[in-house]
């Protein structure tokens, strides 16, 4: 891996067994991500976006190919090591937020830090700062059910940043939001990318979101067919 590369996928393939047939979901995907990148992977439904993020995020194993995150080949790690990698190097933002119900926004943001064994004082302080950074300092003690969709996704973004991950993977983060909230979230991500040099990989079917990225990839039928660079 190069000096600035923090993630690299090489010939990444994934197929699923359906009865007696192997159905390919990803086909020899190659991807290089440098620190501070804001990458948007655009593709229609069923193109393999979620599968790709699952492999990059150590949530699933590829059929073939390899993924490195900061010099660690995560395709050759055991589950115990993978959980550590997910905990410390990767942040996740899902389409449906996936916050823990009946846990306050503050507690949800502290969760990854519990698994990273961060001290209670530092955990709370950092969670408050992150929620402040996403504009939710007035919603610390609210449960997800008491937050709007946009606010829930902002909590999810704050949670993804909790352990200062090398990279944040976002699977259709605006897919469940209206236009206004979509713009708000994307502007927030843009700001975090510029101010904190946080690396993001975002998948979406929405072509309009590619304008926020400095690198754009297109995924079609499991193949990264084309890429372009905005900046």
């Amino acid at each position, binding site marked *: 891996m190069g000096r600035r590369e923090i993630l690299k996928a090489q010939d990444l393939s994934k197929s699923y067994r359906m009865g007696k047939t192997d159905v390919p979901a990803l086909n020899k995907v190659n991807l290089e991500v440098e620190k501070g990148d804001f990458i948007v992977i655009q593709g229609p439904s069923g193109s393999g976006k*979620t599968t790709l993020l*699952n492999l990059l*995020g150590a*949530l*699933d194993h590829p059929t073939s190919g390899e993924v490195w995150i900061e010099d660690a080949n995560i395709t050759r790690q055991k*589950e*115990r090591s993978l*959980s*550590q990698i*997910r*905990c*410390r190097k990767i942040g*996740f933002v*899902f*389409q*449906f937020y*996936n916050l*823990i119900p*009946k*846990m306050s926004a503050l507690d949800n943001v502290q*969760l*990854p830090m*519990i*698994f*990273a064994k961060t001290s*209670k004082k530092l955990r709370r302080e950092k969670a408050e700062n992150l929620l402040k950074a996403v504009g939710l300092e007035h919603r610390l003690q609210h449960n997800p059910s008491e937050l709007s969709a946009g606010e829930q996704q902002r909590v999810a973004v704050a*949670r993804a940043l909790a*352990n200062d991950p090398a990279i944040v993977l976002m699977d259709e983060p605006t897919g469940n939001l209206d236009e206004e909230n979509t713009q708000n979230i994307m502007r927030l991500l843009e700001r975090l990318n510029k101010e904190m040099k946080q690396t993001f990989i975002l998948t979406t079917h929405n072509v309009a979101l590619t304008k926020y990225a400095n690198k754009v990839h297109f995924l079609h039928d499991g193949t990264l067919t084309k890429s372009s660079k905005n900046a």
Partner: protein
Amino acid sequence: MLEILAMALQNIRRRAMRNSLTVAGLAVFVMIFVLITSFTLTVQSEVSKSLSDLGGEITLWSQGALLPFFGEIPENYTTRIEQIAYVENVSPQIARICSVDSQDLRLVFGLNPSDISVFYTYTMVEGTMINTNESKAVLGYLFADFLKKHPDDSITIDGHVMPVIGVFKTDTWMDNVVMIPFAVAQNNFSLSGRASIIMVTVTDPSQIDFVVSEIRNEFPNVSVSKSQEAASRLAPLMGSISVVSYTFSTIAGIACFFGITNVMLTGIIERSKEIGILKALGASGGDVTRMMLYESASLGAAGGLLGCSVSIALFLQGMLIPITSASVIAIQIFPEVFIYGFTLSIVISTVAALYPVWRAVRVRPHEVLKFG
């Protein structure tokens, strides 16, 4: 670790109703265990105490009798036992369950008057102890209170009317019995030449095993034991009580085990997405295992505490075992039974959670999070 425990407790609070019911189920199990075990131990303890209250150091009774008091052995064994070295006193005694003044199932003892003070410690509440072989009776003070009988009254034992000449007190279960002369008991109960048990004391306590051995050699068809060991010789009765008791406890434990497994499994299915989220956020299999085992162990501890508390409250209210229509014994509190009950509650709930935990650890985040 404390954070994981805090999360486990938070999870319990989030499902308050279901977990309350689980705790209630565990508490019921602990209560069943504590009550049944205490009942069994109380019965064993009382029987053991009763035998030792009988006095004597060695007891002979009919082999195979359900209870030693109610078998029959030849009275003339006493003559042969008296010839064994180190034997001090030999006392044939009769015990019978009779109707006394229309009270069924009363225990009547027949003893030689001269043996009473040798084998029993008592004080007279009223009147005098029997000191001849005349047809007279003395009553334990509890039974006398129940019958409202005093010296100079009379009682009817299985149709035989006898004057009451005294009321005694031993502070043992014998305070519920009627005592009559041995010869009168033999005559009234048609036990001529026979006794229920024979009690023996020895001159030198260090020779008691020798005397027991000699008696066993002399009478191979009779049960012989030291009084302290008598309770343990009461198999199969005590064994049967224990088996029935522990069977009930085990059934309750198994029901509880499967109940908790079912609740935890249902919880895993409902919480699979949540577990997937935790794993995606970096929770290891160990973190998930600890969290869920803490949850189940906490439920076990809560159930154990509740069960023990309610049991203690019941005991303090007075849990009584009726012996006859007029006499009862209180179930005793055995601290170790509560400790076992509490521990069992935690162990059952924890072990019952192992399979659900295994399932939880195998939850694959990308599968449960795929559809939101």
